[in-house]
């Protein structure tokens, strides 16, 4: 278990995950700063990400696509807001529709700090602008979501309705 804390704020549509790794600060920074490392963990296994542009600088852009088992592809990109190597990144993650229409998904704030020699904590805060954006991000973050492009909300709605 390396996830040490999880906080959820349904009012503000915010999720914060704190994790600790047996690695140096620089090694954890590399997860974001090196596109070949980034693409190893960003997408789910059956939908790996390929990073096509990696300008991790304020005002820069990181572009990627995810490819599924049937060759189906999904485009996504980050608008980079803040970068303070090797400790801090703020970015806005968006995805593009098939026709290229951008859909802002969330703002991600990453804070990295060394808590002991060879032990590094990374805190990731994800803020969603709307329930719809949260649902879209879910579809993209999971293989099931990408494969079926179904609404996870349907089941929740049925549950919520029947509970009343």
């Amino acid at each position: 278990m390396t996830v040490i804390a999880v906080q959820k704020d349904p009012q503000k549509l915010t999720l914060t995950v704190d994790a600790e790794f047996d690695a140096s600060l620089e090694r954890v920074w590399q997860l974001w700063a090196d596109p070949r490392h980034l693409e190893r963990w960003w997408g789910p296994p059956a939908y790996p990400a390929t990073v096509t542009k990696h300008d991790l600088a304020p005002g820069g852009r990181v572009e990627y696509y995810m490819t599924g088992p049937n060759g189906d592809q999904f485009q996504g990109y980050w608008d980079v807001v803040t970068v303070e190597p090797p400790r801090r990144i703020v970015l806005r993650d968006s995805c593009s529709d098939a026709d290229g229409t951008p859909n802002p998904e969330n703002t991600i704030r990453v804070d990295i700090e060394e808590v002991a020699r060879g032990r590094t904590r990374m805190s990731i805060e994800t803020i969603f602008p709307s329930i719809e954006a949260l649902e879209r991000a879910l579809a993209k973050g999971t293989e099931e979501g990408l494969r079926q492009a179904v609404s996870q909300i349907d089941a929740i709605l049925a549950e919520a309705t029947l509970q009343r």
Partner: protein
Amino acid sequence: MRVASPDIDRVFAAFADHTRRDIVRRAISGKEGVLELASHYPMSFAAVQKHVAVLERAGLITKQRVGRRKVVRTNMDRLFVARRLLDQYEEVWRARIDRINELIAERPGTIGTKEPDR
């Protein structure tokens, strides 16, 4: 625990249709009227109006007056939906962190870092 209400058949029937489920989802934010909702679907305004009426009878949505407009709003706790979605999104990050751990455990130098851009 509450005994199932007689409306349960109506709820299931209302949910059995894809367009109606989609209307309920859109109405969570409660920003659109029937006219705006209708613009999302390749069907007549009257057909969308009918779907909205079915949902209204099942108690899934209500029409509310906001200023001069009437918006369609889902009858449920928005926070409940948000909480469940955040629970699912937590799993996205847990899976990423698992992959990061595997990556960190690999021997340095085995990951291709030579080409900065493909």
